[in-house]
């Protein structure tokens, strides 16, 4: 085994670019590990973790590119690092032409700009967002690792200036049909949405589209917006904007469990909203939310879609939340193939909201599930990498994100986990979610197909049968094409559902 590294001073690239170079180099025969990153302090720790250390690395700055590799022989190391410019140029060919160096230069090019999309590393994000607000721009803040204090500062400042901060940690928004971040291609229509849950917003907007209705605007607020510290500043500001918006006739709010005092503030505001509001606050029993005449609580995202599409137009058909008799028969047949020791669920998910909603639905059915992101602390996995009993893992959780791309962009981590689970003879059901749309993997199903087939093969070899349940969040108009992704799954024997809630209901049926 041999290792080596190259440092390029003052050569800065964004994380998606670095990931592309990393992926290409890792495909070279004989390469065991690659690290293509900037010289920030956390990245230097990552290099140390894989055994790459040197005084030059210690001295590297966040503006310096570091490429480190571990390979089978010194010749491979020398060959790859010696051809580094070729790797960089191969990716750069596809990159857009760069134009300006600072926000101020950008504004002088487009003085009528109304939105800054900020996705710089977290430690610089608040600074850039503040500058954007200062110049009168609304902010879509994709970056994570922004402190709650900075988030509060930015949102208070935005409120003073009559601007909106979507985020931090905001994965998606749709403004007047324009998708920002991880958005899907959905029809325009009368339903406005607000969500403190990235994949929750994608699921809601896709289902509204697939039900035949459409979205006026869908605004991500960032996952902490309904916390006790932020008190829904962006949610409340967006509610006001959607209330005034002529395109919007009904408003839906989707979130993971909100802080209860913040929820009370929000419900008070909803009560005087001039438009009907649907609220899906996962983890809160909808029966406990007092309904005012204009407010309808929903227990799941599917239910929220059903309520939202119904009054907006006579045409759209609310999706059914029940499994049809044919599907129930399919599920019963699946169970017949299981060996006596097969009994557990393993959910390997990319969507944080899906991880949460699945647990909620299984919990309501009396099925206790372990997770690295559990509803109740007592169900937390001892280690995220080690499943126990019924387990649903959020592969986009922080533990998996250090120096790695999100599972919506790259399936490598999920592929590894599926193969690891396939060696456990007690696994009966494998549940996978697939999220389509802009900026997501161009072939999320294709990336996992080999692993799914291998897991099924190993289970069969042991005399059993692995049931693969899948849900796909997307539309036919997405770049990945919903129908094609579903077809690939069905061809390898997966049972495919159009929503996470329905897939979770099917899993209850399988385990019940």
């Amino acid at each position: 085994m041999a290792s080596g590294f190259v440092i390029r001073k003052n050569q800065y690239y964004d994380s998606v670019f670095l990931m592309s170079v990393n992926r290409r180099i890792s495909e070279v025969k004989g390469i065991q590990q690659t690290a293509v990153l900037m010289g920030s302090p956390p990245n230097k720790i990552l290099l140390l973790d894989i055994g790459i250390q040197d005084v030059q690395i210690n001295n590297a700055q966040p503006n310096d590119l570091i490429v480190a590799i571990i390979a089978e022989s010194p010749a491979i190391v020398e060959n790859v690092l010696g051809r580094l410019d070729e790797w960089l140029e191969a990716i750069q060919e596809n990159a857009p032409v760069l134009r300006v160096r600072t926000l101020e230069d950008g504004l002088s090019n487009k003085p009528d700009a109304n939105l800054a999309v900020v996705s710089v590393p977290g430690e610089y994000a608040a600074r850039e967002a503040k500058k954007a607000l200062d110049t009168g721009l609304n902010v879509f803040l994709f970056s994570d690792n922004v402190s709650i204090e900075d988030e509060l500062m930015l949102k208070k400042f935005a409120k003073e200036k009559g601007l909106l901060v979507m985020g931090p940690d905001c994965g998606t928004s749709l403004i007047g049909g324009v998708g920002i971040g991880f958005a899907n291609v959905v029809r325009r229509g009368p339903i406005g949405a607000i969500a403190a849950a990235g994949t929750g917003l994608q699921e809601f907007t896709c289902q509204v589209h697939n039900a035949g209705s459409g979205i006026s605007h869908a605004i991500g607020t960032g996952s902490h917006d309904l916390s006790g510290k932020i008190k829904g500043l962006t949610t409340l500001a967006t509610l006001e904007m959607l209330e005034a918006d002529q395109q919007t006739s009904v408003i839906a709010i989707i979130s993971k469990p909100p802080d209860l005092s913040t929820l009370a503030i929000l419900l008070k505001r909803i009560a005087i909203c001039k438009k009907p509001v649907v609220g899906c606050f996962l983890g809160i029993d909808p029966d406990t939310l007092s309904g005012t005449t204009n407010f309808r609580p929903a227990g799941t995202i599917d239910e929220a879609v059903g309520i939202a599409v119904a009054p907006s137009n006579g045409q759209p058909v609310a999706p059914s939340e029940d499994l049809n008799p044919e599907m129930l028969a399919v599920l019963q047949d699946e169970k017949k193939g299981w060996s006596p020791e097969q009994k557990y669920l393993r959910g390997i998910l990319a969507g944080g909201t899906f991880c949460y909603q699945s647990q909620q639905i299984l919990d309501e059915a009396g099925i206790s599930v372990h997770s690295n992101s559990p509803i109740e602390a007592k169900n937390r996995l001892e280690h995220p990498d080690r499943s126990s009993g019924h387990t649903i893992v959020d592969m986009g959780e922080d533990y998996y994100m250090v120096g790695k791309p999100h599972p919506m962009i790259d399936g490598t981590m999920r592929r590894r986990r599926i193969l690891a689970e396939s060696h456990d003879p007690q696994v009966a059901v494998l549940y996978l979610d697939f999220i389509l749309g802009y900026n997501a993997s161009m072939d999320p199903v294709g990336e996992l197909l080999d692993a799914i087939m291998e897991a099924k093969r190993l289970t069969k070899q042991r005399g059993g049968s692995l049931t693969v349940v899948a849900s796909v969040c997307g539309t036919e108009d997405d770049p990945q094409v919903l129908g094609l992704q579903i077809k690939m799954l069905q061809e390898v024997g997966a049972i495919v559902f159009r929503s996470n809630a329905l897939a979770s209901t099917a899993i209850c049926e399988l385990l019940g």
Partner: protein
Amino acid sequence: MEIPENKLLSGPVIAINIGLKSFGTNLEQQGVEVVQVDWTPPAGGDQEMMDLLDELL
């Protein structure tokens, strides 16, 4: 002081993209006017220097 009305939803979106270039490319593909900022960590990523610059500007 009266807070101005936010006209973002009345559109069209005109964006300045700071960070991941693929986000800017996607917006361009949707017909949105975008300026791509070729961002690098300010002051070479030196926090003390950044704070100093912020104070000076």
